[in-house]
């Protein structure tokens, strides 16, 4: 039974959400509109203009933009994959076990996130050149761990800590092996944290600018660096810039759409939290 008060509250909530959505989405709509405008029309503020595909042709057909996107997918995707493989077990250990200096270790991992990039990147440039990691996929995937790993470990750790250890014992007693317990029972429970932090880690790695700017050049050329080309020194090509950024957002958008249904906590076999 819905009372009048509840109905009014419901309407208010929808209105507030729409107000925020307008604020959040309008600049994106504006950007997509600019991507269809010629350079002479960029500064018009009416919604009527002569749409053109010239910017798309210029960016997508007359440059290696597809290759830059692919490079970004490889390094950002690779970075997240490595972070999941080494980070999820680490998060589990930091949540489940009690061992001396545990909190210090966790803080050590966190501290990589606030190591100022500019401080790290110049010495790293010299080290990378000595190790042969300069301008390589592996080199960027490695340095991106500073961006993706702390976030993933700290978010996922919290989700592991929410799961009672008793249900793990119970499953052990019932004769399930450790990987059955891990993949069938624990993974569904940590899923919202795992997929949301993986998406955020992917986005931050994707948007990273300082690292690829200084640690790579020709062989590996992520989009964030490539986009800067459209901001030429004397004449900025806003239309092409808008195309470049619209297209460069697509992989993250696809990622977000894919994980959407996993953002809701999964049901693991009969397990309840707490």
């Amino acid at each position, binding site marked *: 039974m819905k009372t009048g008060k509840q109905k009014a509250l*419901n309407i208010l*909530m*929808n209105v*507030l*959400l*729409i107000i925020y959505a307008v604020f*959040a989405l309008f*600049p*994106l709509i*504006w950007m997509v509109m600019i991507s269809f405008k010629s350079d002479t029309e960029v*500064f018009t*503020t009416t919604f009527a203009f002569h749409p053109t595909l010239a910017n798309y042709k210029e960016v997508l057909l007359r440059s290696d933009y597809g290759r830059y996107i692919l490079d970004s997918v490889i390094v950002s995707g690779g970075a997240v994959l*490595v972070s999941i493989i*080494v*980070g999820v077990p*680490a998060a*589990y*250990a930091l949540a*489940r*076990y*009690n*061992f001396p200096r*545990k909190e210090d270790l966790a803080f050590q*991992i966190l*501290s990589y*996130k*606030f*190591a100022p990039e500019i*401080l790290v*990147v*110049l*010495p*790293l440039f010299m*080290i990378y050149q000595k190790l042969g990691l300069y301008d390589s996929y592996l080199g960027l995937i*490695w340095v991106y761990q500073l961006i993706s*790993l702390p*976030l993933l470990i700290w*978010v996922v750790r*919290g*989700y592991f800590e929410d799961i*009672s*250890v008793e249900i793990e014992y119970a499953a052990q007693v019932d004769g399930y092996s450790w990987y059955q317990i891990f993949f069938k029972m624990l993974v569904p429970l940590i899923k*919202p944290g795992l997929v*949301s932090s993986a*998406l*955020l880690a992917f986005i931050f790695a994707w*948007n990273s600018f300082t690292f690829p700017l200084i640690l790579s050049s020709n062989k590996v050329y992520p*989009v964030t660096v490539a*986009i800067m080309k459209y*901001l030429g020194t004397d004449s900025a090509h*806003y239309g092409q810039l808008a195309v470049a950024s619209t297209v460069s957002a697509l992989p*993250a*958008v696809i990622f*977000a759409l894919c994980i*959407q249904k996993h*953002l*809701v*906590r999964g049901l693991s076999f009969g397990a309840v*939290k*707490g």
Partner: protein
Amino acid sequence: MAAKKNGNDKSEFNTVPFSTRVRPYLIVAPSLIITIGIMVPFAMAIWYSLTNYSFKLPTHKFIGISNWVNMLGDASFWGAVKISLLYGVISTVLEMLIGLGVAILLNNLNNGLSKVLRVLLVFPLMIAPVTATIVWQLMLNSSVGIVEKLLNKFGVYNFPWAAAPGTALMTVIIIDVWINTAFIILLVLAGLQSLPKSPFESAKIDGGSAWFNFTNLTLPMLKPSLYIALLFRFMAALQEYAVIFALTKGGPGDSLMSLSLTAYQKGFKFQKFGAAIPYILVLWLIINIAAKKIVKLQRTAQKQAAGLEE
């Protein structure tokens, strides 16, 4: 609270076999090995702060703490500390409040609108911050921007936005909020989705009000996730560079010269890398202290939340 696998007191810990004791370290080790290499550049940077290191000079020599002394004697240093803190605190607080509010709306309104917006509202994060800032710059342009046209309808003309020292900070913060609130929304929404159902079911039977349920159940159980979001957002906001640089390069005047921007300017524009590093290390120290404090709060909240869920 659930008992930990290895027991809680030290004497018990010492009786477990060695192989069990080292297991957690072995599991954490790959993460540390991968990232530990970063300590080398960090140590090198501290050394450089004691030299006259510059890209222009072929060699560098030890000059003691004079870079540090110069920085502390520089009036612009204290201004930069203030701007970094103002920017970090105001933008983070706004993003936390708006992000929490929007996440709750998305969670409570289980209609088509909220389902679509759950995906769409994350999009601002996916645009490179520099490009996002340029789009805002076009929108805020004080003669031909669309926002100006909108303000004209309300009788406001030539609002200066980033062009005047008085409104520049507000302008970068608006852009920062636009980009990064999505970060909070996503983490808090995931936190809300993973709350256990049973405490709410028993509260329903007890007949508590919605507000009572929110402050006594939702908030305490959500707190650990909120602190994680706060931690990562605040650390990044204190370091923010891209938005300010793309918008005004630190101007007008030095009204937006934060610690990061001052350091970049000294390091790259004036080519004095050695002199730039102390600014970054001060920033690092501020973030370190803030992070320690937030982590402590997070650990306490996590323990309390675990108790609530029993």
